[in-house]
């Protein structure tokens, strides 16, 4: 046996010794009966969507929050969705309607740490996106499918299974579906033809038969467009439905139409000409429990969509629907907000507080409007992008 062979043998013995030692120590570890620390459980009461990114690479991040009492928010704990997404809720989970084919609705639940975790998806092959969701109760929801397929799907939010569908082909081809509202067993669906018909159109669906009852039209305004803002339809305490139309691409003014309680036709006696009242194009309609209503007003119709570096062009505006009056800015000192998808939303979080989003040149933030006093204050700023949705969990 020469020196090299001896060296090799010593090397093998040494390696074997180390291996056995590590194995024994590992084995000892497995016999350790110490209890691992419990995972911290947090109660999630809110869900938030932030669009983050710069240039042409942007996407939505979702996160759960225990409360809204904070001065700033970021996306460090956000779940990357990989799509621009609008968010909705049934009070238990967060639902996203993403932009981009095929139409995909995702249900996210929050785990013990508050992380948004994908639970299930509903996908409609051949269509571009889900346009809007309306969740009636724990087991019934409706979603419009945009781009090529003219239908509403009925689904079970708990199980995320399609339970039925409503054919909207008779409403016409090439339509985009905007906001929805349910009243008196009827589903009212705002139809957007980008001004092509020069009129405002709503599909009325009978939910008892899941069939299209009729299309109602009104040519005093046109283009029911809710991409920029979260809502363009609302119901007042009396059951009247108000519908906001932008008038885009039609030569018609922005305005608000009404469908009176118990009826399924536009009220020919009512029209709120927003263009005449405010002087500009308006988008969105938000109504709160005290009857106060807001819209947003465009200050630069040449750049109503997109991110013009120096000119955020939308302002929140108070209006009186019953008197058809413009009540001026929500707060004169508020910064303007940009208008990309869902950069404008307003969410009532308590009897006396409405939160709304500002996507600005200097700061993205969630602001608070105190209903009783009319005071506006900054609730929290977002350091990671603009906030596009807020839901409240029960």
């Amino acid at each position, binding site marked *: 046996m020469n020196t090299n062979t001896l060296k090799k043998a010593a090397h093998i013995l040494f390696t074997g010794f180390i291996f056995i030692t590590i194995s024994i120590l590992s084995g000892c570890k497995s016999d350790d009966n110490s209890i691992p620390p419990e995972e911290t459980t947090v109660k999630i009461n809110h869900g938030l969507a932030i669009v983050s990114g*710069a240039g042409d690479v942007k996407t939505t991040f979702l996160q759960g929050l225990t409360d809204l009492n904070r001065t700033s928010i970021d996306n460090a704990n956000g*779940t990357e969705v990989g799509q621009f997404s609008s968010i909705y809720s049934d009070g238990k989970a967060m639902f996203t309607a993403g932009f981009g084919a095929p139409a995909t609705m995702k249900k996210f639940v929050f785990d013990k740490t508050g992380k948004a975790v994908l639970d299930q998806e*509903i996908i409609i092959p051949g269509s571009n996106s889900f346009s809007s969701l309306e969740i009636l109760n724990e087991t019934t929801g409706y979603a419009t499918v945009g781009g*090529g397929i003219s239908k509403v799907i009925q*689904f079970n939010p708990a199980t995320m299974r399609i339970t039925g569908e409503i054919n909207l082909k008779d409403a016409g081809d090439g339509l985009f579906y905007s906001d929805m509202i349910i009243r008196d067993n009827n589903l009212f669906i705002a139809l957007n033809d980008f001004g092509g018909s020069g009129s405002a159109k709503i599909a009325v669906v009978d939910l008892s038969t899941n069939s299209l009852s009729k299309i109602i039209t009104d040519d005093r305004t046109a283009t029911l467009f809710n991409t920029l803002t979260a809502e363009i339809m609302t119901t007042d305490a009396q059951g009247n439905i108000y519908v906001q139309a932008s008038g885009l691409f039609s030569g018609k003014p922005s305005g608000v139409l009404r469908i009176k309680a118990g009826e399924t036709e536009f009220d020919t006696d009512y029209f709120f000409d927003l263009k005449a009242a405010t002087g500009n194009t308006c988008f969105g309609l938000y109504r709160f429990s005290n009857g106060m209503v807001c819209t947003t007003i465009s200050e630069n119709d040449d750049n109503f969509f997109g991110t013009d570096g*120096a000119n955020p062009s939308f302002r929140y505006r108070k209006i009186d629907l019953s008197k058809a009056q413009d009540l001026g800015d929500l707060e004169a000192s508020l910064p303007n907000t940009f208008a990309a998808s869902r950069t404008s939303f307003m969410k009532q979080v308590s009897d006396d507080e409405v939160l709304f989003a500002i996507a600005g040149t200097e700061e993205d933030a969630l602001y608070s409007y105190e209903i009783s006093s009319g005071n506006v204050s900054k609730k929290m700023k977002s350091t990671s992008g603009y906030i596009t949705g807020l839901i409240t969990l029960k």
Partner: protein
Amino acid sequence: MQYVLYFIIVFLCIPIVSIGQEGVISGTITNEKGTPLSTAHIYIPEMNKSTVSDDSGAFRIEHLRSGDYQIVISHIGYQTQQKTITLLKNQPKIKVTIRLAKQLDELGEVTLLSTSEATKIRNSTTTVSVIEARKLNNRSVTTSDLLGTVPGVQIRQSGGVGNATEVSIQGLSGRQVKLFVNGVPMDFLLPVEELGVGPSLAMLPVNLIKRMEVYKGAVPVSMGADALGGAINIVTRKEKYDFLETSVAYSSFNTWQATVNTRKVMSSGLTAGVTGYYTYSDNNYTLNDVTLINEQGNPESISAKKFHDAFRSYMIKGDVGLIDKSWADYVALNFSYANLYDEIQHNFEMRQPYGEALNKVSVHNNALQYEKKDLIKNLDANLYIGYNRIITNFNDTTLNIYNWRGEIIGQRTSGGEITPSQNKLKLTGDNISGRINLQYNVNTTSRILFNGVTSFFERSGEDPVAAAFYGNDYYKNPVHINKTVIGIGLEKDFLDKKIVSHSAVKLYHYAAKGFEIENDEIDEVEQQNTEFGGSQSFSWKVNRNFLSKLSYEYATRLPDRIETLGDFSIAVAANPNLKPERSHNINLGGSFKKETWSVEANGFFREIDNIIILQAVPPPVLSTYQNLLKTRIIGVEGEISMRPLSWLNVTLNGTFQDLRNRSKKEASGVSNDRYFGARLPNKPYLFGNGEIQITKNSLMSPNDQLQVWWSTRYVEEFFRYWEIDGRKEDKLVIPTQWLHNIGIAYTGKHKQYTVTLETHNIFDQQAYDNFGVQKPGRSWHLKLKTSLFKS
């Protein structure tokens, strides 16, 4: 029109000017067996004139007075020879045949480049890589594959043969990188603008290419386009001897590739050639983890073969011309027709399968080319004038909805698979382009270079299907674009050619006229712009082994037609206020070469401003291009080549590039500076290639050859979205990829035939370049190449 007249006049005058020059030494360089030797260096010391023999071994030196000349003929691997030739007044033209004897210590192919055209380019002041396709045309590789092996170059593909491809050079990509064919911008010749780079590169098979020059950083004056930080020039084969060569390859996924290339050269100098290729692939490789949707709308993961991704392309090209005339080294008329059929399988993130949408293209090219060295004393000229017609058809007319198994599962109520209107779009683009490239040798140490490229493009179309949807056939409105790029350079040698300086200025002019649609109204839009750029580069030959280079370029890329005028067919609105993209490019590097090994390293710096980005919004609202983001790129690339044994070649290269956002919030479309300094998303930052090749000669019969190789490519994982956003562990990533290929090729004696067997992605790994879009798994390739005769 004045530009066209200018080109025609210059074209007609140049040959006339050149007639009457006298004193020519020409001939052929061969080895001891009489086989022509290309790339031999022929040098007349007293005149400081030199040239390099072409593929047929031919050379020609002109403008010599009567007298005695000593010529020195050298070639790596052969003994240098000197010969004295006398030119008489009554016999001013001498033709000689010179046979070179082999050196005892024979060197192989890798080092045979020292005086070749490729080596001249490599030794120029700019940072450049040269791929000699001739050495790789035994293999079943595509032009894109070859480009991907160059350090600093990243090729990202969305699928198989002919699919979408993005070329990146040292971090710059897309429209910032320009491609050329023989110095003519590729978008004049192939449907680059209509279908992108991928299908266009697929229309240039490796077997028809001589070499590819990849310019990184300062783009030479001879490349007449507004490249921001890199250019690729594909030089096609142009032999000057009789030959007939064919190749046919069959690969997995029913992929066929065939080429034929032949040429006849008459003693009168008349030459004619025919080139053709055919490529077909079903591209029906298996996709993993695609979703099938059940009746409840929930996805189930399956594996399925692609069913609608066939690609077919063919081309026939002919030329007739004259070579080695006193008034022209080469003058030829070229005619070609190419056809392409490309099925579209899915959307860009591979989430939605398509079953019927497709593109069809036909391309007609007619060109006149003229080359002459010493056109008048010390002036070399290269001219091109061409007329091209590119007809593209985009069909998207079905209401059918397909699943990933290729089954029809329903019907849309409106719209096509891709567009909301449905399309049966035919676009016809006519292009007249001209290029003048001149080099004037002021004296033995100074050269002035001039390059002018101008083009006139008009495109209009028709789409009866979309017209029915929109109520108007918007595509009938014509679009005109005139582009002119003029570059002037001065190249000067110092210290006995040890240091070479190259200074250049470029002028870009762009005038476009198109239309935009607003509220169903068609408005004419015009845009024109004139910009300047400049560069300064140096090379320093420190000693016979070590060459270093330094270059700076202030580069400009003008907004192109779609960016500035918009394009209704892809829902992009006009933005006439776009500013040009600008970049400061600095490259510093060096190469050290010994007989059996070489090493090269380059550092690069880019500072790019006003980057033009599409700000996409949901259709039918039109998106616009905007100037957003400023980016800094710092990187290093290196390559080591070794030939430790006469039969063994090893090559290893790697690139690290750090792309960081340098925009303040105003130019980023955000409200704070959190992205300042952040690494750009969706961009590979670490990648490399390796190859080991074994070559054995005279294995079974004299002069035969067996080659065995293993090649690999590595790309480090990178984030799809900005890395500073969101919870790290859940972020979408394009995973690390390390793919391996092996191959074996046997070449029979006298190189009359080669049989090649290759397998790509031997471990059948999941490969991606773009998020969600899967590339083929393991594939097999069998190729037969024959040289039926060669004079």
